[in-house]
């Protein structure tokens, strides 16, 4: 293994270097170490270095204790499960506990794919229990942890409702046959505009380059969404085997529009503020956000999937490698793939519901949402939505570096 490198003679320095140099550094250790002020770097480096070590091989088999231990720990993103403000509980989760006898510790621990990965990677690598039995990560990161062997294979026989997964989400390249993951929620990246300020509307990504919109465009800083849309505009099948040339060509378009000032800013979630303040009139956005923004701001914007296609992303439920409660996790997954339950969640989170039959079930909850194409997409919308293909580690690094440099950081 490549970490059998030479270590310094001095035992103290050696201990230090060893602590830092576990084959893969966890983000937290490195972040601390290299922060400009460096505070706490050593502590962080020592604190999280322990897991990486020599045990990079296949994870030790875990004995499933689900039968004797009716608990379940679930790490999810914020605002991603139906929540009752009055009782301060998650109604569907309460119902699950009552029905199954399993107590669920639900935590909103995932605040970013990269940051979460950095937090748990060392333990996953060592095959340790990270304290979660289900974690929820976006496609590309799900692909990474599955590829690295950090997840357990699901026993689909225990999840009969998994057959309710939308057909379009069943065949994903990062997890063929859905053996390790099931979709929690999905959404599109597409284009949106302010209906009052730009009545003309948008049809394709190239409409964003209209001189009338100069300096009033924002695009997402999520590489796969922005680059995905730009490449689709070029006629590239982003799920297929495209390479450097296609990527660089689309990147040139992005760079040119940033340099000319057409694109005002490249942003993450904070683009919403620019839409609300009026600084941005149009841009590349996420569908669920638009539903929420329109709900709170009198329906000011319109969202479409560009003619050439938009990206479809999903967050996926997976069982991390060290979890001894896979059977409990499978029960929960099975529960949420019931159409009635999925509809209850969808009514709250406003993203695409990945469960067949939830639309019909929505009738009892809120019939007005049945017609919302951003929650229950029409066939033709789904046909236009594409999943960005998985990237090899080398590609990922080089594309991310190029994208970051194009957006000026």
């Amino acid at each position: 293994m490549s970490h059998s490198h030479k270590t310094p003679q001095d035992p103290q320095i050696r201990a230090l270097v060893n602590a830092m140099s576990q084959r893969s550094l966890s983000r937290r250790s490195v972040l601390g170490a290299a922060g400009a002020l460096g505070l706490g770097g050593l502590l962080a480096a020592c604190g999280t270095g322990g897991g990486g070590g020599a045990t990079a091989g296949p994870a030790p088999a875990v004995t499933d204790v689900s039968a004797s231990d009716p608990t379940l720990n679930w790490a999810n993103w914020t605002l991603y499960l139906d929540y009752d403000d009055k009782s301060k509980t998650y109604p569907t989760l309460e119902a699950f506990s009552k029905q199954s006898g399993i107590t669920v510790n639900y935590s909103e621990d995932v605040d970013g794919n990269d940051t979460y990965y950095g937090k748990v990677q060392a333990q996953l690598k060592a095959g340790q229990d990270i304290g979660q039995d289900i974690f929820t990560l976006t496609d590309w990161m799900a692909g990474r942890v599955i590829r690295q062997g950090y997840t357990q294979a699901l026993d689909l026989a225990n999840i009969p409702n998994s057959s309710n997964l939308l057909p379009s989400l069943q065949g994903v390249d990062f997890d063929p046959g859905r053996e390790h993951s099931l979709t929690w929620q999905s959404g599109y990246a597409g284009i949106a505009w302010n209906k009052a300020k730009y009545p003309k509307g948008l049809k394709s990504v190239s409409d964003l380059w209209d001189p009338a919109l100069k300096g009033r465009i924002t695009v997402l800083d999520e590489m796969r969404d922005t680059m995905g849309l730009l490449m689709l505009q070029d006629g590239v099948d982003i799920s297929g085997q495209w390479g450097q040339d296609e990527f660089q060509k689309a990147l040139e378009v992005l760079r040119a529009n940033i340099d000319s000032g057409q694109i005002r800013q490249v942003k993450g979630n904070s683009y919403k503020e620019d839409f609300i303040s009026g600084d941005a009139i149009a841009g590349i956005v996420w569908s669920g956000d638009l539903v929420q923004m329109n709900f709170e701001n009198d329906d000011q914007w319109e969202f479409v999937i560009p003619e050439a296609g938009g990206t479809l992303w999903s967050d996926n439920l997976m069982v991390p490698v060290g979890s001894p409660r896979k059977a409990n996790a499978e029960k929960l997954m099975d529960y949420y793939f019931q159409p009635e339950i999925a509809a209850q969640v969808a009514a709250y989170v406003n993203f695409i519901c990945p469960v067949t039959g939830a639309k019909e079930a929505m009738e009892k909850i809120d019939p007005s949402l049945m017609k919302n194409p951003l929650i229950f997409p029409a066939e033709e919308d789904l046909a236009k939505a594409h999943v960005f293909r998985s990237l090899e580690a080398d590609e990922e690094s080089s594309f991310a570096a190029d994208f970051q440099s194009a957006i000026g950081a």
Partner: protein
Amino acid sequence: MTQTISKSGLSDLRSKDEIRAERRKGRTGIYLVAPGLLVLALFFALPVVVLLAMSLYVKPPGAEIGEFVPGFEIGNYMTVLSAYWPELLRSFWFALIATVLALLIGFPMAYLVAVRLREKPLLQGILLVLLIAPFFSSFILRTQAWKQILADEGFIAQALKFVAILPADGHLTATPFAVVAGLTYNFLPFMVLPIYANLGRLDTRLLEAAGDLYASPMNSFFRITLPMSAPGIFAGTLLTFIPAAGDYVNSALLGNNRNTTMIGQVIDSRFFKVIDYPGAAALSFVLMVSILVLVTIYIRRFGTKELM
């Protein structure tokens, strides 16, 4: 303590008890300094070593994302410097402008509160609280507020467009102007407070004497007030410049993606987006050393004895 140590050459003239007492005092000094040294070693010296080591790590062939092994890759520095020297220069340039602006704005404020309002303690107190008040709310929130104040549809941008200072399709946010303004605003208290503390000790009788000797107010300001407040200005400029140069909140929130990126933003993105730990560490180290060099030159040139 310094006195006793400097006298140690005379030890043979003193009794053994005296010598013992002195040694004990010396040791007490070391004990007192030890916690400070330990904290410095643990939280400053070691992280710097770790940072330096990390900046030289290499990516092994076929590595997973975020996988690096110890090495001695000086090339990391070349790579990031050749790619990001404009951002580095821009950071210092923005920080310099912000520091000068903060001085021009902050000095009169400090002077007003510390000297002019000396006879009115109540008003002085209120103004002082107002100066510090921004610290009571979050740095991010205040910067975010500026985005709203300078927004295209906001009053300021509309007014400037009305009087044609700003072209009709121009905007204030997402410009270098907004970033420098944000830096100036956010670090202004760091400029005002040291100058205030310094001017608070200004002996106004000197100004009266100058007046008696027919010095114009301008003359006495430049010959008395300004030189006497030099240590405050010196501390204020350092406290403003150093954090401003490494800041990335202002450029991230108020800037664009073209001509406002500062080095802190680059370091952040190398870490979290590109996952290039050695590159980010190298940039951090370069930033640290550059600031150290700039500050050393500044201290050598303008530093006063009082500060050293």
